């Protein structure tokens, strides 16, 4: 039962993620300034912007890897507070893929995938392993199940990381620059998996500089700079007719080289 069901008709029943005037500081540095963002169920949002603009910090606030200091974050109807139950509830709903994969090096690929289903969701081992193999097939590496992450290539590791997040059956996926640490020839295999997920209707927020990918899958583009959301628009409008000067400058820098 999803928490959204228990709460019934909340004002956000159609929204998977809502951020309302979210602020965050690192010491005196104002990293997130008045962030307002709503992601509908099934919607794919791609976040871009120069480095240090707060993109990663924003999506890391959604599952409480970072704590926001002001404002409201609501995920599937659960408000993110210091309440451990709320945090655990949200983390069950939200899968995350990191730039540096963060697979557990002391566990095999299969053990990486079944860890959370077995220990957090208390599913039987057999069932968890079966599900894990299905997800490995979806990311096209079932033959690597018994290997350790250190024996795989970067692209394979990131696909395992995606499968690991999917094994928790999340309703939302967060991607934090999933292809930035990869060699160029491995980027495509990871993006292909992500496109497949998008086609399956997954709610996604993706921080990435892969603009081709963004054009293919995004419903909405978000451009961030200096801790604020500068512009938000559907990709067609965003790429052909950006309103803000900063967006124009950013796009001209990453699209023409």
């Amino acid at each position, binding site marked *: 039962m999803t928490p959204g*069901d228990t709460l019934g008709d909340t004002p956000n029943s159609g929204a998977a993620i809502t951020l309302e005037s979210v602020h965050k500081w690192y010491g005196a540095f104002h990293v997130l300034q008045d962030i307002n963002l709503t992601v509908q169920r099934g919607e794919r949002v791609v976040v871009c912007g120069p480095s240090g603009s707060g993109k990663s910090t924003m999506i890391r606030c959604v599952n409480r890897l970072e704590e926001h200091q002001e404002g409201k974050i609501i995920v599937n109807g659960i408000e993110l507070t210091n309440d451990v139950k709320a945090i655990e509830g949200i983390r069950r709903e939200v899968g*995350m893929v990191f730039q540096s994969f963060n697979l*557990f090096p002391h566990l095999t690929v299969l053990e990486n995938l079944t*860890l959370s289903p077995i220990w957090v969701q208390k599913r039987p081992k057999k069932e968890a392993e079966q599900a894990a193999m299905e997800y490995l097939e979806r*990311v096209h590496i079932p033959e690597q199940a018994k290997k*350790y992450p250190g024996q795989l290539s970067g692209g394979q590791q990131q696909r395992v990381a995606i499968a690991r997040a999917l094994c928790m059956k999340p309703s*939302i996926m967060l991607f934090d620059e999933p292809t930035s640490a990869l060699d160029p020839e491995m980027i495509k295999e990871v993006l292909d*998996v992500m496109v497949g997920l998008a086609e399956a209707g*997954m709610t996604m927020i993706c921080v990435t500089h892969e603009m081709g990918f963004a054009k293919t899958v995004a419903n909405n583009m978000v451009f961030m700079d200096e801790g604020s959301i500068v512009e938000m628009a559907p990709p067609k409008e965003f790429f052909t007719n950006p309103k803000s000067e900063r967006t124009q400058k950013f796009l001209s820098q990453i699209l023409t080289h």
Partner: protein
Amino acid sequence: MARSGETPGQIIAREEEPKDVSLPPPKAPPTSPVLAVDWVRQHLFSSVPNTLLTLLCFWLLWETVPPLIDWALIGAVWSGGDPQLCRDADGACWAFITEKHRFILFGLYPFDEQWRPRLAMALFVGTLLVSSYPPFWRPWLGLLWVAVFTSCGILMWGGVFGLTPVDNTRWGGVPLTLILAVVGLVCAFPLSILLALGRRSDLPAIRMVCVGFIELIRGVPLISVLFMASVMFPLFLPEGVTIDKLLRAQVGIILFTAAYLAEAVRGGLQSIPRGQFEAADAMGLSYWKKTLLIILPQALKVAIPPIVNQFISMFKDTSLVIIIGLFDLLTTAKTALADPPWRAFYIESYLFAAMIYWAFCFFMSRYSQYLERRLETGHKRS
């Protein structure tokens, strides 16, 4: 329960492209010379200083090794209860060990009952060997240890099943050293993990207690911890209450070792990248599950060298219990020399004790290397 993510969808991915097969065959690496003469010339006599060093080494070996073999093997007296035979011989007096080994090994334990510590040690060492094999790291191993500790206790103390009671003030030699060391390790290790985790805790009270304990204990020598446990501590107890001397020494050793081990474990914890914690958090693991399933297995593996270093050091430090009058292995080796006719053979006595210490320490050292290799999963590519 309807969730958008559950609808199975097709994922498009590129098939592996076939490798180009028209590449030239790989070139073999250059082979190095294998002739013995070449090797000697290259490594031992390549230059004038090198030649001088080589000759010096040969001379030193010639001066030390043959006399040592003469003393230890050829000229040695191996048996016979008469110390005069030894005095007449040129070599080592191993007859001393033949004569006194039961005292050195078992101390003041009643002579006719010494099969009991012997059996207890066999059980103990056997279980240690069984537990050093990783596939046996299962819950039943804990039960086995409980059973072994219980039966060793029964054997050593007696008093049940028709065994004569033996007070633990009469324990000594190898059993005492092994008990102090193994019980010390078994108790200090989990305590040190808790201390190391506590030192990194977000809760200031817990952190302060752990830092305070570690810094206080590390700031004093073990000898003073033992002395306090033995002399000072009883002064604070209410009249009529006494705590066993062996137990006090044991607790002293546990606390001391835990403080040092905690820093070794903390070193391991520090080496785990932040991403591992974040990935575990993002998967919804609780603090203890994250710590036990993800962080500690990796941290302890990294910390194997300093942890084993500490184990070895503490195994030998148990010999300091001599200052509170416990008869550990080194003390029995020393006391065996108190018999006037045998007084001259201290080298043999200490060598014998040293070899026993060395055997255990060498095993620990080799075992730690085996464990490191075994737990290697290829994430640090060399």
